[in-house]
């Protein structure tokens, strides 16, 4: 039952994110736009590049989708409304997100095309930059909850959301989650206008439809992770818990799309330099501050 509800939620939220993305690119609200685009993609020919690594080329979009769904599987929408409430939930989110890299490398290598290849390897560099900024803020969140259970993490924010308790961690996690979803200004692996779509350049038709869906679900999954870790998950007055989750996740997704929309694309070397020279020291500082707060307040 939970499985069905969560999957339906992921799909509908992904649809709304697609509508917003469409609005940002075309300047108009077209509520049926993504539906028509999806139908059109399914109707079009899905071309196969010359001499592809067929196995990787076919697997990559599916693996991206699976990774995004698995990451969302341990994030609760309401008390009891979670696919798997793992004792290692907060760690499992990282484990699932690590396969986003594998999917992008496969999509980069698979089609035997220069743009895709550059895009795939670029994402490897991007992961080296952002991965610590995903793991370290989550560590601080788990420190406060004294648990890796995602439901415990939500409950730990009953008095005060982590957004206020550890704002530094929130900022770092939010920026890093933009990089996970390769959203602007971190859209280095796809880089429209420079790599002509990069890892997604050679995909068309039904394969591209799966790829786009996976990317949208990934955005929703990261928004759900931000909600659970920093915005108190389902907690909130008056409205039912699940509705609070939905509102927060959609708001974070919108913020993720809007945040990068007005920024220029960052260079790979700059991203690495900023993440390692500034991001990691700040993440360590965040862990230290949270450690002190945990010791004083409890």
């Amino acid at each position, binding site marked *: 039952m939970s499985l069905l509800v969560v999957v339906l939620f992921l799909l509908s939220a992904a649809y709304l994110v697609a509508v917003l993305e469409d609005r940002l690119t075309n300047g108009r609200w077209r509520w049926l736009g993504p539906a028509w685009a999806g139908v059109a993609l399914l109707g079009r020919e899905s071309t196969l590049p010359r001499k592809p690594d067929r196995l990787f080329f076919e697997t990559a979009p599916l693996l991206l989708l699976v990774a995004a769904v698995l990451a969302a599987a341990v994030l609760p929408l309401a008390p009891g409304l979670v696919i798997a409430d793992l004792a290692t939930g907060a*760690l499992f989110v990282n484990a699932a997100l690590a396969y986003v890299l594998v999917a992008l490398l496969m999509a980069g290598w698979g089609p035997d095309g220069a743009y895709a290849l550059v895009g795939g390897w670029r994402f490897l560099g991007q*992961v080296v930059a952002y991965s610590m900024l995903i793991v370290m803020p989550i560590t601080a969140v788990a420190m406060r909850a004294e648990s890796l259970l995602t439901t415990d993490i939500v409950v730990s924010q009953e008095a005060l959301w982590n957004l206020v308790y550890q704002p530094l961690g929130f900022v770092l996690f939010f920026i890093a989650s933009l990089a996970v979803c390769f959203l602007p200004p971190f859209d280095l692996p796809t880089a429209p206008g420079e790599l002509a779509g990069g890892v997604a350049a050679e995909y068309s038709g039904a394969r591209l439809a799966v790829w786009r869906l996976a990317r949208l679900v990934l955005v929703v999954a990261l928004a759900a992770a931000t909600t659970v870790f920093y915005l108190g998950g389902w907690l909130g007055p008056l409205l039912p818990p699940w509705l609070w989750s939905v509102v927060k996740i959609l708001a974070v997704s919108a913020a993720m799309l809007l945040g990068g929309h007005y920024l220029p694309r960052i260079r790979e070397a700059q991203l690495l330099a900023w993440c390692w020279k500034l991001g990691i020291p700040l993440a360590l500082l965040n862990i230290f501050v949270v450690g002190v707060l945990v010791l004083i307040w409890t």
Partner: protein
Amino acid sequence: MISWQTFFMAFFGIAAIVFGAAVFVTSSMMRSALALLFSQTALGAMFLAMQAEFLGVLQIMMMATEMSIMAIFMVMFMMDPGGLGDMDMSHQKRLSILAGVAAAVFSAVIAIAAHWPAGPETLSEVASAGAQVRALGVELLGRSMLIFETAGVTILTAMIAATAVAIPPLQRSKAHES
């Protein structure tokens, strides 16, 4: 009647062996690296089937990044990373096959001859996943702290040293002059 636990152990065990064999069968460096990744992921899944949740999730997480980074090095340093030029990576085939078969037979004999604890009561003896995480944390910050800290600092030192060595001497002398 085999339990689900046994079934998944066998399933992921066979998957680990198949992917492990694929590492050496393919000549594409990328396929080789990712086959090794999925072999390791299958091992992680075996840990999950054995109710070692933390270990399993950690294995599944760590290997994805590690093997991907290994892939780029394999592509960089091999003369034929795509495997399109009929490059043969294998050598000493007879010895390898003999060693492989001997090791497999040896492990199988141990697996069959060992006195495994039987019965359903062993399942309940396994601590819950939450208790395991807690026990691991206490262990890491208690008795084993010195070992892990020493290992961690040693690895960090090695990484810094390797990076320093990798910077070409030319650049270093230029930076020195300016």
